[in-house]
């Protein structure tokens, strides 16, 4: 019992570590904010390409999405940071030598765009076809129907799954420690080495879950709320299929 406390919940070390780790939060926030921003913009674009009537765009989106969903994020991260830097140093092309934060944001954006593209696509496809038809029959172009009718509804439905993506990325920001971005896990590991005690990891774990658990709960709640259909918006297909109900004016 004593040992457990000494190694994992060592009070003196906790007191030191908490402020140290809290100071990394702006870095984590930066990775998250920029990573998600680019991931969502690029992911939405990919989803629209995926649904496009142009085969080349569709094909590109499918290959991109499958490839980056299948690729370990850590590998991509190391490739963008070290893999490019080695070539940069060798050839003298300095532009290939990226600061670690930029390398991390790029890797997150590239991979999370692929994940979120599937979320956006599902959201767009969940909007009944009648909505597009109503919009088109009013003379709207495909683009106008998307922009004013489909996307505003689709974006609402994707908030819960995108919240889950946010949770996943919060956890994945810790991968950036491998390329020495001074974020939460990096500092915790550093401290662990200095004090030769794993308590800093405990503190880091607490900090992660303090942020992730409320978001997980929130996503679940939003999802549940969306499942309750609001009365009267759409007619179920079986009812729409019902036929002649003659005689209104007879």
């Amino acid at each position, binding site marked *: 019992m004593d040992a457990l406390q000494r190694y994992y919940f060592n009070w003196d070390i906790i007191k030191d570590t908490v402020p140290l780790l809290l100071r990394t939060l702006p870095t984590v926030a930066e990775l998250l904010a920029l990573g998600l921003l680019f991931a969502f913009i690029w992911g939405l674009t990919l989803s629209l390409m995926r649904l496009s009537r142009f085969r080349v765009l569709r094909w590109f989106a499918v290959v991109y999405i499958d490839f980056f969903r299948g690729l370990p994020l850590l590998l991509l991260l190391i490739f963008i940071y070290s893999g490019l830097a080695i070539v940069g140093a060798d050839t003298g092309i300095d532009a290939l030598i990226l600061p670690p934060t930029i390398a991390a944001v790029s890797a997150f954006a590239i991979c999370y765009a692929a994940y979120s593209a599937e979320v956006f696509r599902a959201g767009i496809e969940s909007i*009944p076809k*009648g*909505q597009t*038809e*109503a*919009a*088109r*029959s*009013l*003379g*709207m*172009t495909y683009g*106008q129907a998307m922009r*004013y*009718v489909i996307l*505003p*509804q689709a974006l*609402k439905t994707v908030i819960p799954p995108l919240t889950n993506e946010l949770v996943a990325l919060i956890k994945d920001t810790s991968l950036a420690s491998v390329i020495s971005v001074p974020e939460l896990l990096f500092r915790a590991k550093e401290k662990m080495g200095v004090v030769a005690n794993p308590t800093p990891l405990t503190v880091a774990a607490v900090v992660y879950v303090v942020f992730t658990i409320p978001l997980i709960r929130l996503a679940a709640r939003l999802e549940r709320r969306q499942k309750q259909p*609001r*009365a*009267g*918006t*759409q*007619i179920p297909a079986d*009812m*729409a299929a*019902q*036929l*002649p*109900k*003659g*005689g*209104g*004016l*007879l």
Partner: protein
Amino acid sequence: MIRLMGVHKSFGDLEVLRGIDLHVVKSEVVVIIGPSGSGKSTMLRCMNALEPIQRGTILIEGVDITDPKTDVNKVREKIGMVFQSFNLFPHKTALENIMLAPLKVQKKPREQVEHIARELLAKVGLAEKADSYPDQLSGGQQQRVAIARALAMQPDMMLFDEVTSALDPELVAEVLNVMRDLALGGMTMVVVTHEMGFAREVGTRLIFMDGGSIVEEGDPREMIAHPQEERTKRFLGMVL
């Protein structure tokens, strides 16, 4: 106004329209009846190019909409369409539903559009529902908003696809009344419906479709009283 010549339409191997010839002139109210699956909806959807056709020609006000060079969006502005399932935009209020297309497609000034929209809402008897969302409206009210939304584009003709079939019986009349007023106002209308009372009272022509073809057409009263074709007789016997 609307002219179909030898229109053939298939979904894969299934031939749904087998050579339709139809000419609708200004201010006509053409009522289309027929059994389920006879191709009524498909024909209506072809008329504003929601479905491509395999063979034949469709002219809307003289413009060939099957010509790939035709801007179908422009043609659709001239054709209002109302659906069985309303298809109101759920994220917009009744007023916003009506205003969206005139604002974004016709790019008219907001004040003018809002004025027109409020007038149309009053015309369909829903002036006080301007700020309600679709899920706060009854089916009949939603359908009347959908009609107003189509009218806001100031179309020259209106297509109605079983617009009362999804409604409770007591809500049917309020929608049919709006349609009757439209017809009396001289609107050119193609109406797929099973409301034989409406056909008799408002229709200027009745068309019976079966198996992707027009089987019989004529004056509604005359045809309902004395159908010529065996299939028409059988169908009318079922719905009357």
